[in-house]
């Protein structure tokens, strides 16, 4: 049964949540927002635009330890899988959808046990977007501005109070643990439908084309001039990979402790935009040019993942556009791809 939480009751809600979980929530930092472990409910900013890194990185952290080794005894290897109970609080629908996509990718056999263990001990509490959070977003074009699943609880601001959808047994337990919350009544539900209905008018499309055709259009444009134009701009810094909520490529690295006896093997984020990503030891580089790499990033999300899982691997959060110092924009690329066909190239 869904409940409502009054604005002035939200601190009590978060405090209670903290008694059971490490609460990871949007907090303000240097004029922007990040998902961070909070020590006090007052730190939380429910009304944030977008965070620097997506919340999924708390389930898929950089330099995640995979195993510990002993240099004196090569056969001695200790597996490490961490599973702290954590709650991701106020996750926007795009990021909820991104976690759903990551779940699908990393649970596919042979599955990624390290990710799954963390995922199973993570509670996700969503936060409805009733309008665009910033410029440079494509979530509305992709219908990823709404999350239908992948959360335990889901908050919608309906004025003076939040409507909280209870979507899982874990969510129900949390609501029972907090206690004293009002059941959502008829007027709350009416208000929920009203604000959701108004949402449609606030979002506007960024792409001038039928998104269902995008995958096909891109395949047609595989050898197009577009990629060479992007190449001239791209600095191959990999920022787009790092901020992407569905980028999961990684390297495996060993680091030896200063005692020179023990060490740890880590999974370190890697990026397909970096020059050496496909370079092998004998010197061949299988994706030499930035044009090939930019194209690969776009195709991976829109063609390859779409073919495997039936939906686009890009949730349209726009972080890659915001953080590209060379002003490469997926919106621009997609529009060019549609224009190209319209012009009959």
């Amino acid at each position, binding site marked *: 049964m869904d409940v409502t939480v009054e604005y002035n009751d939200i601190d009590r809600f978060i405090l209670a949540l903290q008694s059971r979980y490490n609460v990871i929530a949007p907090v303000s930092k240097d004029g922007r927002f990040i998902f961070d472990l909070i020590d006090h409910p007052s730190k939380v900013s429910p009304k944030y635009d977008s965070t620097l890194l997506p919340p999924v990185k708390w389930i898929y952290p950089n330099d995640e330890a*995979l*195993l510990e*080794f*002993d*240099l004196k005894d*090569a*056969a001695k*290897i200790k*597996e490490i*899988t961490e599973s702290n109970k954590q709650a991701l609080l106020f996750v926007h629908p795009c990021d909820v959808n991104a976690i759903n996509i990551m779940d699908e*990718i*990393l649970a*596919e056999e*042979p*599955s*990624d*046990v*390290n990710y799954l263990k963390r995922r199973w001990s993570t509670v996700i509490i969503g936060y409805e977007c009733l309008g665009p959070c910033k410029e440079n977003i494509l979530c509305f074009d992709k219908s990823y501005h709404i999350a239908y699943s992948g959360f335990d609880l889901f908050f919608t601001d309906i004025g003076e109070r939040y409507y909280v959808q209870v979507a899982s047994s874990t969510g129900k337990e949390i609501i029972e643990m907090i206690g004293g919350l009002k059941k959502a009544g008829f007027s709350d539900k009416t208000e929920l439908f009203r604000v959701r209905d108004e949402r449609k008018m606030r979002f506007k499309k960024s792409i001038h084309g039928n998104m269902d055709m995008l995958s096909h259009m891109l395949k047609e444009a*595989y050898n197009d001039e577009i990629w060479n134009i992007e190449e001239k701009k791209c600095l191959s810094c990999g920022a787009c990979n790092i901020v992407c909520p569905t980028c*999961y*490529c*990684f*390297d*495996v*690295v*060993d680091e*030896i402790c200063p005692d020179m006896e023990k*060490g740890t*093997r880590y*999974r370190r984020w*890697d990026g*397909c935009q970096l020059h050496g*990503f*496909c*370079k*092998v*030891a*004998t010197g*061949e580089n*299988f*994706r030499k040019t930035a044009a*090939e790499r930019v194209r*690969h990033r776009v*195709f*991976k999300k829109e*063609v*390859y993942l779409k*073919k*495997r899982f039936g939906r686009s691997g890009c949730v349209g959060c726009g972080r890659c556009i915001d953080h590209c110092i060379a002003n490469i924009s997926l919106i621009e690329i997609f529009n060019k791809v549609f224009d190209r066909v319209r012009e009959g190239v």
Partner: protein
Amino acid sequence: MSNFIPMPATLVGVRQVTDKEKLFTISLDNGKNIKHRPCQFVIVSISGVGEAPISISSPPTDSGKVIELCVRSVGNLTGAMHRLSVNDKIGIRGPFGNGFPIEKIEGRDILIVAGGLGLAPLRSLIKYVNNERKRYRRFILLIGAKRPADILFKEEVTKWDEDPGIETHITVDAAEPPWNKNVGVITGLFKYIDIDPLKTVAAIVGPPVMYRFVIRELLAKGIFEGNIFLDLERRMRCGLGKCGHCQINGIYLCQNGPVLSYLEAKKLQEAL
């Protein structure tokens, strides 16, 4: 258990193959057999150095309990491997990849084209076919290397060359006397072989630049695109279809490869 945990293994043999490559014989400490197919690979782990994917050079039909890896010292891990000796411990994950479709080639003529280090993975297939010789018809080997001293497994290659049941042709890019075999690129060997294109299955492994030229020769001979198999090698980290390095277009070579038919590979713009 996490898929990143290597199985402890011991080097039971280390042998110099050429001045650059060594052959490592490895047995798992749990006494189990690494059940592999020809052209599959394992990921070798050395604590403190890291991991790297290495093709298995031994056939599944040989003695069972050990695998052989032919390794050139070129990177961090392969360099560290070359510094190891017998009884040293390493870690093994795998085997990974689809391997060669051995069920599909029974009763066929087998044509193998191995350029340079390509003989390392193909040796598993050559020895497999040779051990089960009766199940196949003609067996043709084309082997190329840079110089005579670079030819891998020289004793075995000589044995195959002398075996009347195997039609072997060998070439090197450059050589001085007493070399009395062919000199020139591997495609130069195709003029010596006369094949029945409808009955022949080809397997190719070599440096990236070699594939296009060899495929063109095979197509000119009339071999069906689906009967030309390529073992494509890329950078790999996880072997689980996750880390992204071995991806060519939509597929992960560590899971859907490394062996692809030309019919499949030609649809992938990044494959060749």
